[in-house]
């Protein structure tokens, strides 16, 4: 079986990987790195990708280093991480629900995280527009909001099992409710926050700083590693409950664990990059087309695609109408909404 890479160390460590998927992932990784270099090089001062790479390595012109390291790098990294996190969250949900319509935004999980973040901002900021508590609590608030929304959707949609369409409908309902809640919080909350929150809700990495990156990077990368190691659990869940139980999976417990991973990833992304929509829907679906359904291949592919989508949307938002900035979420929504309709149309036929 030379189409596969097998790694074995003693009796206790062994892994298996599809070569074709490895090639796709390597290519996507290269594309992501290239887009990353273009992105940190783009702006009022244009820097070529080669010069950007040189500056990142600590060489080249000092002004390049300052512009990239101080101003551009954090936001591009936050965009990349947010895209990966949202795509991974969507991939987990789609595998568990066994339906391509599932994603953190469609199921109201992003909305829950957003409402929680706006509530957090309204509660814990002073007149100078700065937080009265550490920003490190923000992802926790987002995670709790995401988990609460997921729980409500699950409780309302569960009736002798989960029918995907009912889940999606309940999710859309909860999404709308969360949006209403968010708007309400912005109206009753302090006015100086409202404008900023509005941009943030659409999904923007405008204000990203190193402080954000230093917290978000280990969180997202760590969660992605855990999800990767849990790939086989998602794989059996994709066969349906009966087969999963038959194969010895503790379905209920694993489902809970996977939902929590998914809401944690969504929360992490939303806390720092806002409600960037449809990435969690599109990226996993596109990845499935590229590498198939096996989750070990699907997850990294989806994550890289998600990163590329959000970095690309952020780049477009910065460059198209410069110096006016368009939030990245506007572009992902412009791309994602038709995609969602296309998926709905396809699922109607089957």
């Amino acid at each position, binding site marked *: *079986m030379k*189409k596969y890479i*097998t790694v*074995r160390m003693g*009796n*206790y*460590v*062994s*892994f*298996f990987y599809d070569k074709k998927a490895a090639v796709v992932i390597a290519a996507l990784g290269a594309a992501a790195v290239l887009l990353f270099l273009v992105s940190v090089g783009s702006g009022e001062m244009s820097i070529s990708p080669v010069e950007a790479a040189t500056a990142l390595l600590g060489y080249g012109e000092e002004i390049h280093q300052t512009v990239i390291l101080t101003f551009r790098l954090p936001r591009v990294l936050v965009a990349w991480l947010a895209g990966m996190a949202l795509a991974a969250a969507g991939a987990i949900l789609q*595998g568990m629900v*066994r339906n391509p319509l599932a994603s953190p935004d469609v199921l109201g999980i992003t909305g829950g995280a957003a409402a929680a973040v706006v509530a957090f901002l309204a509660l814990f900021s002073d007149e100078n527009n700065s937080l009265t508590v550490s920003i490190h609590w923000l992802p926790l608030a987002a995670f709790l909001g995401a988990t609460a929304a997921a729980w409500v959707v699950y409780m309302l949609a569960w009736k002798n099992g989960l029918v995907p369409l009912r889940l999606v409908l309940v999710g859309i309902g909860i999404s709308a409710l969360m949006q209403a809640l968010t708007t309400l919080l912005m109206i009753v909350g302090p006015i100086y926050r409202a404008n900023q929150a509005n941009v943030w809700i659409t999904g923007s990495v405008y204000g990203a700083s190193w402080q954000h990156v230093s917290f978000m990077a280990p969180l997202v990368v760590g969660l992605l590693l855990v999800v990767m*190691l849990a790939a*086989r659990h998602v*794989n*059996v869940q*994709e*066969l*349906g409950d*009966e*087969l999963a*139980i*038959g*194969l*010895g*999976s*503790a379905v209920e417990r694993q489902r809970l664990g996977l939902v929590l991973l998914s809401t944690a990833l969504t929360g992490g992304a939303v806390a720092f990059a806002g409600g960037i929509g449809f990435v969690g829907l599109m990226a996993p679906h596109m990845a*499935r087309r590229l590498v*198939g*359904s*096996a989750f070990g291949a699907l997850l990294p592919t989806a994550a890289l695609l998600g990163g590329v989508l959000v970095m690309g949307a952020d780049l477009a938002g910065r460059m198209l109408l410069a110096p006016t900035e368009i939030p990245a979420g506007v572009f992902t929504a412009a791309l994602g909404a038709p995609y969602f309709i296309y998926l709905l149309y396809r699922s109607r036929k089957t």
Partner: protein
Amino acid sequence: MEALQAKELTLAYGEALIIDRLHLTIPKGKVTVLIGANGCGKSTLLRALARLLKPTGGAVLLDGKEIAKQPTKEIARRLAILPQSPTAPEGLTVLQLVKQGRYPYQTWLKQWSEEDERAVARALAATGLTELAERPVDSLSGGQRQRAWIAMTLAQETDIILLDEPTTYLDLAHQIDILDLLFELNEKEQRTIVMVLHDLNLACRYAHHLVAIRDKTVYAEGKPEHVISRQLVKDVFQMDCQITYDPLFGTPLCIPYGKGRHILQKEGVS
């Protein structure tokens, strides 16, 4: 020797009682076939035997111990279940599917051991799918697809295999093909096979032990040649028939009455 036992087993979906205080012993190393009319609860019983359904009363025993009290992963190394018409995720290849059978043997770091590789290769060979390993499951014919699912349960390397109507939606040739495969597994490797079948005549041909379900319990069980009679078919299926013998195998053959074209001379019929 018993492989699986049901004691005072009571099963219900919500308020609806399906199986009522049933006793059943599945003999080890034999082919057991459950038969019964539509909706009699034979599939439900099979699901309970595989711990997919919690009993509302009584218990299922695996090696004499209550199945509900044993770790599910350990059960999965001794007992495999193939539900009725399973569906594979879009684009999943045969190899990827069959690999899932190794799930109960894997850990966080041990995900593809040499035993895993051997078991999967054996399962593919036994089902004649080695050549098709790279094909997506949804691109296969019905018979091949069912073989792929059976290969997955084989990769699980369990002594007991439960199958819910493994021949549904297959043409006659493929039905025989699948049943021969299961029979051979039993003959060569003494695996205990328990399945629900709709075709009474094929059930009689392949089963060492036949179990007829009626009125929420076991109506009759034993060797097909001892169990099958006009009265049993009448009671279990509410159908009149004549019982004769399979000219090839000598096992009971049920010929139903009903309407249809009579082309025999009247005096030719006894």
